């Protein structure tokens, strides 16, 4: 009996007994409420057939009491249900689906195994429309007034993936403002827009009808050129927004926290991780709509805030894992065990697994083979461990999926079996085979055999490697004393670690010194004073103002940084480094800036508003121009904050002088999240918004008319369809947020990479947004990318959480896959030293001339030096010339047999 599968948006069916989805943790089968026995006391067939007697219908829910010192609420969100708004035809027209439905269609584990099909006729849609802002930015019953933040970019992702699936597909996105304000999102948007057959149309739309026969859907929209028109699509995707969690009210009641008017968690504006109740923290979208990186900041940040409360009990409940002693197999003949995984049907449906097992059993040195339904399951992992012990295996190959996911799992099985974990190789017969050759079963099976053979060839040459333990100095260095740096420093110090906070200016505060209020009403100067007071008063924080960094050496757990502060040079030893250097405001060269003192930047305007500058607050007409220095060729990114900042200033001016005429000339208004409400408020208060095209920027000239000095701003109004002239008294420019010029130097000192716009580049955009690839170095605040104060605070706590993860340990383990120098073969040419920008290599004088010497702790394992070395004196362990050549040679097929690798040019 099959029931609609909620994980696949009920497009496909599943059984009452199922796993939640293929990557679920734990990956365990369970029985859900649709079970016939649970509903009607019938059936019980499963109980009879289960040999292991694993089914127990007598289980009942249990109440468990847990005593905790802190609570993190991370309930996520509820996708907006477009059924509540009749006009979209969702649930009525079969080919009107939500973006969540579409996401499942795109997925390999989705209802059609990764093929985009229409449920009405299972055909591939050729003409697809996306409708943006469904349920968002709508002050209508059932809609949400706020912007859901993520939909513009997820739609672009879906368009790109659609084009990946089917190059011929025509994709049309009907949108309001395009809000690609996230890091690198502007480039992503451009990439999507430039794809052939992709149209972005700025228009409100209505879903008109469904063709009863073809089930195609007609949409009505309007463009300035053609007016109102109708167009038929094969499929319409509703880009639905983010609603608060459905049990939000219940949670609020149970935990005694407050909700905001939108139903999300009410948070402290200066610390969005804090709820109204001490000890209860909130992370993720429950704070308000946010994207993955921001969500990850808050997760780590909530961890850090719990740490501040509970640090005194750290490690009280942990137990250390003990592995059996590692056996020495250096004198043994290679004995390889090969395990081939079905991955349920993921591999088994395409690749003939038994035949791969059979083939592997005949490969040289293979002494044990087995097939497994899911190699990654706990049972299968135990089988591997047992086989190592019983069959005396000293090499293990698992033919399954990508090492990216499960390599650690299997390495662990080796350790449990008393084998060095580097005697392991994964043959990827899923991503590299069954998934990408799913229609060629025979060829795929042959390829799976070859992939396994390559892996065995490599396994034969693997060496046991030792991961080394490095001691950890318990202090942290925070570079940059702005809001992010100070919050991060405080959180670390509050957990008992010494913090050295260095600031290039004489005073702490950074950019926040020039900010007076936020949209949400935070008094920034008061907050800043309080923060600085806490920093200066903290016994574990030492502040170095007016500082320059002279030298930074060392590695994770053991950095040594030389700082000159107020003329005094100090050598600081620290285990972790946080880069929080902030950002600068762009100095415009356009719109008479610097030539006319009535033209100012947003920050300058704010400062003049704060001191009630007569000229500003009594101005009759004030114009703001957005995107000055952003979203152009030179700086191809959105500065994220300026739309909200302009609206903030506009609202403040309206509060002081309601009669002032304020115009905001913009490209897209990017007031994401709850800031949308302030955009609406500004429009309601008669702030006039005029959109301009990048190819037709506003013109500004200073003119004198009947004795009055005015700034004449000319702009094309797309609604009126003509040029309009605005005579302004004041002009504010939303100047870009730019990376500080010192970033290059900081980047070199701490080996922290920079992205294309010279902001610091995190280790992974989504999953590791506060880490660097370089271990022990972390990132927060505007050094990462422009962001609002609450976002910077989230990330500051996030970085503190990551720092604590490191500093709370006495030692840290470094990978065994590092380079090694064979001095005999080294000719001292220095090519490796030149290539290694990590400074892991240096030449030193020996009796046999200069030789390269490696500091394995600094080695990142990229292996460039290995390639550069003319003599083969440097080898990257685990990716040695010998191992890689063994794989290259094993591609040869029938001719292959493992042999002494012939010496070749690179000196193997």
């Amino acid at each position, binding site marked *: 009996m099959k029931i609609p599968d909620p994980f696949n948006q009920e497009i496909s069916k599943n059984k009452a007994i199922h796993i939640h989805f293929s990557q679920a943790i734990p990956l365990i089968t369970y029985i859900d409420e649709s079970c016939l026995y649970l509903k009607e006391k019938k059936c019980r067939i499963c109980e009879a057939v289960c040999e292991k007697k694993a089914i127990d219908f007598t289980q009942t829910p249990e109440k468990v009491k847990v005593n905790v010192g802190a609570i993190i609420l991370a309930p996520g969100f509820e996708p907006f249900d477009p059924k509540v708004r009749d006009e979209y035809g969702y649930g009525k027209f079969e080919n009107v689906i939500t973006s969540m439905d579409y996401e499942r269609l*795109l997925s*390999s584990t989705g209802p059609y195994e990764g093929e985009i099909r229409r449920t009405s006729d299972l055909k591939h849609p050729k003409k697809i429309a996306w409708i943006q802002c469904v349920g968002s930015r709508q002050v209508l019953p059932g809609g949400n007034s706020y912007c859901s933040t993520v939909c513009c970019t997820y739609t672009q992702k879906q368009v*790109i*993936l659609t084009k*990946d*699936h089917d190059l011929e597909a025509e994709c049309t996105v009907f949108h309001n403002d395009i809000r690609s304000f996230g890091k690198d999102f502007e480039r992503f948007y451009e990439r999507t827009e430039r794809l052939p057959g992709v149209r972005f149309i700025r228009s409100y739309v209505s879903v008109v009808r469904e063709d009863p026969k073809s089930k195609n859907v007609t949409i009505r929209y309007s463009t300035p050129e053609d007016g109102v028109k109708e167009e038929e699509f094969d499929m319409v995707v509703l880009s639905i927004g983010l609603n608060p969690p459905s049990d939000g009210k219940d949670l609020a009641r149970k935990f005694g926290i407050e909700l905001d008017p939108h139903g999300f968690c009410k948070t402290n504006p200066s610390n969005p991780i804090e709820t109204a109740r001490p000890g209860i923290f909130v992370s993720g979208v429950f704070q308000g709509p946010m994207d993955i990186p921001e969500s990850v900041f808050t997760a780590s940040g909530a961890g850090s805030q719990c740490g501040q409360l509970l640090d005194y009990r750290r490690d009280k409940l942990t137990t250390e894992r003990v592995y059996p002693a590692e056996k020495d197999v250096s004198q043994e003949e290679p004995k390889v065990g090969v395990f081939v995984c079905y991955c349920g049907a993921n591999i088994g449906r395409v690749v003939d697994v038994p035949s791969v097992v059979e083939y592997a059993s005949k490969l040289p040195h293979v002494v044990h083979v087995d097939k497994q339904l899911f190699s990654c399951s706990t049972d299968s992992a135990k089988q591997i461990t047992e086989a190592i012990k019983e069959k005396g295996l000293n090499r293990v190959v698992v033919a399954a999926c*990508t090492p990216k996911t499960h390599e650690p799992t299997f390495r662990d099985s080796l350790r449990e079996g008393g084998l060095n974990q580097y005697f392991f190789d994964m043959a*990827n017969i*899923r*991503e*590299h085979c069954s*998934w*990408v*050759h*799913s*229609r*060629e079963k025979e*060829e*795929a099976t042959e*390829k799976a055999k*070859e*992939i396994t053979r*390559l892996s065995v060839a490599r396994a034969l040459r693997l060496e046991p490697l030792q991961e080394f333990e490095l001691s950890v100095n318990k202090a942290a260095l925070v570079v940059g004393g702005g809001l992010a740096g100070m919050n991060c420093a405080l959180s670390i110090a509050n957990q008992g670690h010494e913090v050295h906070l260095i600031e290039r200016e004489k005073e702490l505060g950074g950019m926040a010194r020039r900010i007076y209020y936020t949209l949400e009403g935070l008094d920034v100067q008061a907050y800043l004073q309080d923060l600085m007071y806490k920093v200066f008063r903290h016994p574990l924080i030492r502040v170095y103002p007016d500082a320059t960094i002279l030298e930074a050496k060392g590695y994770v757990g053991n950095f040594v940084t030389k700082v000159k502060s107020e003329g005094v040079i100090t050598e600081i030893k620290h285990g972790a480094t946080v880069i929080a250097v902030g950002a600068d405001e762009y100095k415009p060269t356009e719109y008479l800036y610097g030539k006319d003192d009535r033209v100012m930047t947003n920050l300058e305007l704010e400062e003049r508003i704060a001191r009630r500058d007569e000229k500003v607050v009594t101005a009759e007409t004030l114009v703001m121009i957005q995107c000055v220095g952003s979203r152009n060729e030179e700086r191809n990114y959105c500065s994220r904050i300026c739309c909200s900042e302009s609206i903030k200033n506009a609202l403040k001016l309206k509060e002081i002088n309601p009669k002032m005429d304020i115009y905001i000339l913009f490209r897209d208004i990017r007031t994401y999240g709850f800031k949308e409400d302030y955009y609406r408020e500004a429009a309601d208060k008669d702030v006039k918004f005029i959109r301009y095209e990048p190819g037709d920027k506003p013109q500004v000239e200073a003119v004198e008319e009947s004795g009055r000095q005015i700034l004449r701003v000319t702009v094309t109004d797309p609604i009126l369809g003509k040029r309009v002239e605005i005579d302004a008294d004041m002009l504010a420019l939303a100047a870009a947020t730019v990376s500080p010029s010192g970033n290059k130097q900081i980047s070199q000192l701490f080996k922290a*990479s920079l992205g*294309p716009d010279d902001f610091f580049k995190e280790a992974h955009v989504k999953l590791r947004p506060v880490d660097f*690839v370089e271990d022990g170095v972390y990132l927060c605040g505007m050094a990462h990318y422009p962001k609002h104060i609450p976002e910077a605070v989230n990330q500051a706590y996030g970085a503190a959480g990551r720092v604590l993860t490191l500093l709370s340990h006495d030692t840290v383990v470094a990978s065994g896959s590092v380079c090694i120098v064979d001095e*005999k*073969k*080294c*000719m001292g*040419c220095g*090519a490796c030293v*030149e*290539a290694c*920008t*990590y400074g892991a290599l240096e030449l030193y004088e020996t009796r*046999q*001339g200069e030789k390269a010497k490696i500091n394995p702790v600094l080695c990142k*394992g*990229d*292996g*460039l030096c*290995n*390639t*550069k070395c*003319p*003599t083969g*004196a440097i080898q990257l362990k685990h*990716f040695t010339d010998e191992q*890689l*050549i063994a*794989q*290259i*040679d094993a*591609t*040869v097929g029938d001719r292959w047999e493992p042999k002494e690798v012939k010496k*070749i*040019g*690179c*000196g193997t």
Partner: protein
Amino acid sequence: MAGVSRLQYSNEIRLIRVMCSGRVDLAFILRAFHNGMDGVLIGGCYLDECKYTTHGNYHALNMVLLGKRIMEHIGLNPERLRIEFMSSSEGGRFADTVNDLVNKVRTIGPFGKGEGIDENELRAKLDEMMKLVPYMKIAKRDKLSSRLKDPKEWSKLFTRDEVETLLREVPSYYIDPEKCQACMTCARRCPADAILSGKNLIHIIDQEKCIKCGTCLEVCPPRFSAVLKLMGEAPPPPIPEEKRKIVRKGREEGSSKQN
């Protein structure tokens, strides 16, 4: 992402994992062709988006550019070798690249046959080139570390003439038996272990093992100057074993021990 998105591509490719495209040695590429592979693809991150600070992908590019010229030199179609920069999220791009290379190689034809050159002859030439990889790395070290962002500059990095000259001017090192004092310095310093040495035995360079790095020439004590660099001529055959013994007058042999 090609896998996760289930994008179908040609099954005629085998993937070998390295942590950075900069780890791919010229010798690996030549070896793959030597094994009879019809095409080689190197996938790297986009230029300037290297997750390491080493920017290994620029280095990989340079090496591919040199590799293509070498293929040209030995008569192997350079279009069999390709480097593509892509991001891990671009499954479609990866699948397209693989299909495109496979199709390209198909139009060229199988290794050797497509070029109309005997396979064994090509293999012999590849053998010869593989032996010269260390020499090429040393001679073209600076250019192999270039950072060429603009694709227009790529074909200019190594010109055909330049590579012809490079391969024409391959030096040989030779120890003059008249001058060698069997001091063992060169033998101890040879990174390739290519010098047959021994106390009171005139040293001989094993030309098969020699990687032409010139270390022996550099370290041979100037007062002996026994190592010669020969350009464009084959080194004389090694002296017969029975003539290698140095007969010294009096007690002069102490001089060799000072090193």
